[in-house]
């Protein structure tokens, strides 16, 4: 019987060894720079995260196809930052993922996170490790605000870089646009209770207040509620010129059709949270008609010069791109560029050196020039305004900065 136990044990051990070797054995050998991607690939934020992941993967694939960077192959190490317990992104899981990246000596930088809620948990961790992350979509201004430096980057140096503009510009610039171009005098503001939605609605509210627009009310939607008629009726009774919605698609999918039913003629605007190409499919073409939305980047997807890129993305990744697929694609390019400059300057390829190189980035890209200020925020602060017309999203123009 001893032998049987032994055989069974050996079989088990070899199976474990085989499994453990499997992913490693399938990756490229040689000099590798890993880029950590911690994204909420499951749960409520899955679709947006998927586009972001594919944008990054496309950049990695393109760079490797050209032979890598100075002899280094890039490799994307993807972890899911959503958990079933949270039902969406989970800051604790994001923190765990980043600690895994830090523990992996080949991970030199990261792309992510998708959500600012994750960013608040991981930014101090990155600061300790002196490792840079480049977020394609997290827009909460606090994380990079020097006022909160002690909280989010206790070591001082910027580690949280962004290829998107923060909410500090997106919400106010939409307010500017509605005030100057649409001449609104009164507005009702809704948010969806999420960190992103509340933050952008707050920044919008602050700016419209400064512009002298009368805020007739502010309330909060439960994104899992089915019936928004109550709040819409209340808003209709207050008769504002415009409705601003800060939040993401879950509530917007129901807000649009019910808003269309209750008050079709009010000007309605949202943020990049409702810049979602599937909106007409979810809510109906006529329901989204006229809605304004914004993007914290120059106009990209719908512009002519990007057509080639979009076509390639669609063929390679088998899905439609989003703007954040592009900012994520560019985030990888920023890392690759920093690796190239670090090696060219014959500095050792460490996280610190790479962080320094990223800080000094001056890169032309399909979203325009990319450079960062001392806090990690992108210097280009363009906010683009779009409007839904006849089931398609149409570029309106750059939002006024004042």
């Amino acid at each position: 019987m001893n032998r049987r136990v032994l055989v069974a044990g050996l079989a088990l051990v070899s199976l474990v060894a085989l499994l453990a070797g499997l992913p490693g054995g399938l990756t490229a050998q040689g000099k590798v720079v890993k880029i950590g991607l911690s994204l909420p690939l499951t749960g409520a934020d899955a679709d947006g995260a998927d586009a972001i992941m594919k944008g990054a993967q496309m950049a990695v694939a393109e760079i490797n196809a050209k032979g890598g960077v100075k002899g280094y192959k890039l490799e994307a190490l993807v972890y899911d930052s959503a958990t079933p317990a949270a039902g969406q992104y989970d800051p604790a899981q994001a923190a765990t993922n980043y600690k895994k990246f830090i523990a992996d000596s080949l991970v030199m930088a990261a792309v992510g996170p998708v959500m600012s809620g994750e960013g608040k948990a991981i930014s101090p961790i990155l600061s300790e490790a002196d490792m840079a992350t480049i977020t394609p979509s997290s827009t909460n201004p606090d994380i990079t605000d020097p006022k909160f430096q002690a909280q989010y980057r206790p070591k001082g140096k910027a580690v949280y870089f962004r290829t998107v503009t923060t909410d500090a510009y997106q919400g106010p610039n939409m307010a500017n646009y509605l005030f100057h171009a649409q001449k609104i005098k009164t507005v009702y503001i809704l948010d969806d209770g999420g960190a992103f939605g509340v933050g952008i609605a707050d920044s919008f509210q602050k700016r419209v207040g400064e512009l002298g627009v009368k805020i007739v009310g502010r309330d909060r939607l439960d994104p899992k509620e089915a019936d928004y008629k109550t709040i819409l009726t209340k808003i209709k009774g207050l008769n504002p010129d415009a409705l601003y919605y800060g939040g993401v698609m879950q509530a917007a999918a129901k807000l649009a059709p019910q808003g269309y039913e209750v008050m079709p003629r009010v000007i309605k605007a949202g943020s990049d949270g409702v810049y979602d190409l599937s909106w007409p499919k979810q809510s109906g073409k006529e329901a989204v008609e006229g809605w304004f939305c914004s993007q914290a980047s120059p106009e990209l997807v719908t512009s002519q010069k990007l057509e080639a890129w979009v076509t390639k993305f669609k063929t390679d990744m088998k899905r439609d791109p989003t703007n954040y697929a592009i900012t994520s694609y560019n985030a990888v390019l920023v890392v690759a560029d920093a690796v190239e400059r670090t090696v060219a300057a014959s500095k050792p390829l460490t996280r610190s050196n790479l962080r320094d190189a990223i800080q000094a980035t001056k890169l032309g890209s399909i979203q325009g020039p990319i450079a960062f200020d001392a806090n990690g925020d992108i210097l280009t602060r363009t906010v683009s305004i779009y409007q839904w017309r006849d089931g398609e999203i149409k570029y309106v123009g750059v939002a006024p900065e004042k």
Partner: protein
Amino acid sequence: MSTLDVLLQQVVNGLALGMMYALLALGFTMVYGIIELINFAHFSVFMTGTFVGLVVLSLMGVTATSKSLTGLALVGVLIALFLVTMAITGLLGVLIERVCLRSLRNVSGTAPMITTIGVAFILINAMLLIFGPQAQRFPQLLPNWRWELGGAEVTFKQLVLFVVGLLLMIALSHVVRRTTLGKAMRATAQDADAARMMGIDVDRVIVLTFFLGSALAGAGSLFFGLYYGFTGYYIGYTTGLRAFTSAVLGGIGSIPGAVLGGLFIGLTQSLGGQLLGVKWTDVIIFSILIVVMVFRPSGLLGARTPQKA
């Protein structure tokens, strides 16, 4: 709109919303009345029903973007939709009873309820995996007629919801009070063992109860889809919890109580939203639930008491 008009409109909204809760609470409260089980899965069956309805409609060639139907074609599609969907959700209910709950029927304590939570999680996540997290559009089959009522507006859909809710309440009360099946149900509810000795096939009665309750959930799901024009994997939780609160408020096990409770919750939600803000909706509704539980556990019309025997 004047303030009074807004309030009137909110009352109309609240009544329609309340009838939606009532529709869901009816089947739930009936099952509770027979086997005294708080069936969390009921609201997931309701949610599943909306997706079943979507599939049935698309099999008939009706999607959210297809041309609107009128006349006989519309009536035909609606009849087929309701029959098939209610049959499928009814069978789903029977399946849940046979596979998950029958062996636990005589187990005391919270085991059966924990099981229904498990079933609810399975259904919710199965729908999530199959249909994805995004809201799905539900074809708008009913015409968009609307009428002025004072300063408020009543839509045809709201009217349908209201009439159907009341009719179902009356029909269900009739089934339970007057028919042979109803008598067998009430006998089973009183004392299953005695009912069995009197020659009542208790298993069959319980299966039929689940079928009826789940078919009602199926009907409710279609009204939900037709009224709101969308569905999502999570609607069973939020809407379901409100419907549950309605049933408890009205007096769990009481069929007219479910409707009364639903209307009360619907009005509370719309007037509370108007006066206090919708961000406090959940706090208001659950506070009502807790207060009712503490001071009048048998609800407005309830004969049964949820207190310990």
